[in-house]
């Protein structure tokens, strides 16, 4: 994991499947923040359908990649609950209660909604074999309630969007600060702790 390219936030999901659209919704909120200059300027924002090869292409070479996806609710979690973990944990993620929530969101009927039956776990496994993992990979899952066809997020998931975006902005800020030289640090520090994020 020696990638050193710009950080990327990837919103995974289909916004025509209600809560499956939370990833794109978080990215939309981050775009709003980027327009306010509160994100590190080299941050890349992307949305995708979750197809593993596309995920790999989006995150390869990034020094930090944050993937936001919807998750099927388990008994331990209610809609809007947010789970975060780093890829170092991915090998054993199925044994971890928090990570199990990141099983792909269901479509109509049984099984995952991710294309070709491959979710972020498969993308991570393939990227690891091909040496295409970013330097740091953070997965953020928002537990959803409604994955039926149609636009709009459920109330608890919609309420989580701004909070998740704010946390990601802070994480990007911390990462960016650690990557900046002293001179860059001075020029960027004015926006490093954006007050509007607290609103």
């Amino acid at each position, binding site marked *: 994991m020696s990638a050193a390219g710009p950080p990327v936030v990837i919103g995974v999901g*289909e916004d*025509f499947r209600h809560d499956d659209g939370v990833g794109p919704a978080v990215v939309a909120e981050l775009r709003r923040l980027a327009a306010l200059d509160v994100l590190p300027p080299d941050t890349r924002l992307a*949305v*995708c*359908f*979750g*197809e593993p*090869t*596309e995920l*790999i*292409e989006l995150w390869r070479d990034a020094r930090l990649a944050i993937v936001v996806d919807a998750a099927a609710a388990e008994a331990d979690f209610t809609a809007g609950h947010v789970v975060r973990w780093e890829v170092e944990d991915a090998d054993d993620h199925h044994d971890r209660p928090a990570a199990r929530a990141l099983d792909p969101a269901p*479509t*109509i*009927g*049984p*099984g*995952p*909604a991710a*294309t*070709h*039956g491959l979710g972020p776990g*498969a993308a991570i*496994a*393939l990227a690891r*074999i*091909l040496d295409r993992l970013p330097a740091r990979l953070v997965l953020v899952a928002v537990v959803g309630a409604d994955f039926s*066809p*149609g636009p709009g997020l459920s109330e608890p998931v919609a309420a989580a969007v701004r909070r998740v975006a704010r946390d990601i902005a802070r994480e990007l800020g911390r990462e960016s600060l650690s990557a900046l030289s002293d001179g860059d640090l001075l020029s960027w520090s004015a926006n490093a702790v954006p007050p509007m994020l607290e609103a």
Partner: protein
Amino acid sequence: MTHRHERTLRVGSLARVEGEGAMHVRIDQHGRVAQARLEIYEPPRFFEAFLRGRAYTEAPDITARVCGICPVAYQMSACLAMEDACGVTVGGQLAELRRLLYCGEWIESHALHVHLLHAPDFLGYASGIDMARDHRREVERGLEIKKIGNALMALVGGRAIHPVNVRVGGFHRVPSRSELARFAPELRRALELALEAVIWVAGFTFPEAESKHRLVAVEQGERYPVDGGTRVVTDAGYGFCVNHFEEYVYERHVPHSTALYAELADGSTYLTGPLARYSLHSAKLSQHAAAAARAAGLGAECRNPFQSIIVRAVETVYAIEEALRIIEAYEPPERPWVPVPPRAGRGYGVTEAPRGLLYHRYDIDAEGIITQARMVPPTAQNQAAIEAELCELVEARRDLADAELTDLCERAIRNHDPCISCSAHFLDLHVERS
């Protein structure tokens, strides 16, 4: 096993296909296949309801959301149908740009299926990930071709998934000549890789099989069919205009599937997709694609579903060559779209999605509001033929152990690259034997 009289093969979630599906095969006490079901849960029916009451101009963007793998197919069939309803034909460079965008979708979809979803079946791996450990070069090649296809879609369509640049009448913005010309070296690189892929897959070992189903594909003049056509042709020697599609193709509900079963009016099952396109139109392939097909040992027709991987690889070559041809001849149109004023009427559109023929039909009122919508996706059309192939496959090899038979059945389904999001994803195969 032979000492058992009845078996059930069941795969609850199909691997390496797009969407949600399961398979159930029951072998009766006489060793015959009593039932073979490909169980599908299909969202597009909801989309038809969503479309009613929406403006005719919204159909390309709404229908693109049916599928993340083949959104261009939905957009193009929708555009053609709306333009047909309004009495407008989009030609010239705008039509060429549509074909170029569609080539991007073929390239990325076929590259993914050939290299990561289908090839593991022939090399003895459970998944593309397992295969990547031993065949890294080939997997990387697939990813590179796919990336170029995605980039082409983004260049013309605004983005690779659910393109945003398509509109009824053309595009919101058309690329400059230099924008497309800059992409040509990428395509030339993809062409080399795609030709390598044809030779690679041609070296696989293929089970003996021959599809006895009718073959159905769009006819697009002297061109290999991709982005449209006014006629549909069959291997039975007849064809029909797209506006008679529903007189020649019947759909019916079956209890185990949310997809509708399609069959021809004479009751015969049929296949649409690469085997049909190739067998009906192989003479229209481009220079390198035709040469690659010959080098891979294909004749004028290909009816072995397992060899569909070769046909997809050949079609990838074709789509890249076609993209290069369009880019070389490209002159930006004066306007990015032609006006399509609404009028009350009915319109039809057919195109060739990577998996096969995609039919759209809309009724709109004088203000352009959609009053009726119908979409017939390729996997729904292929479902009955796939089930029949499963029956034949199991009956011919019923002495195989359950695990082998299950594996073979899953392969038989993946031969057709089913898009279950459009019509079923994972196969959980259960064989019942008693």
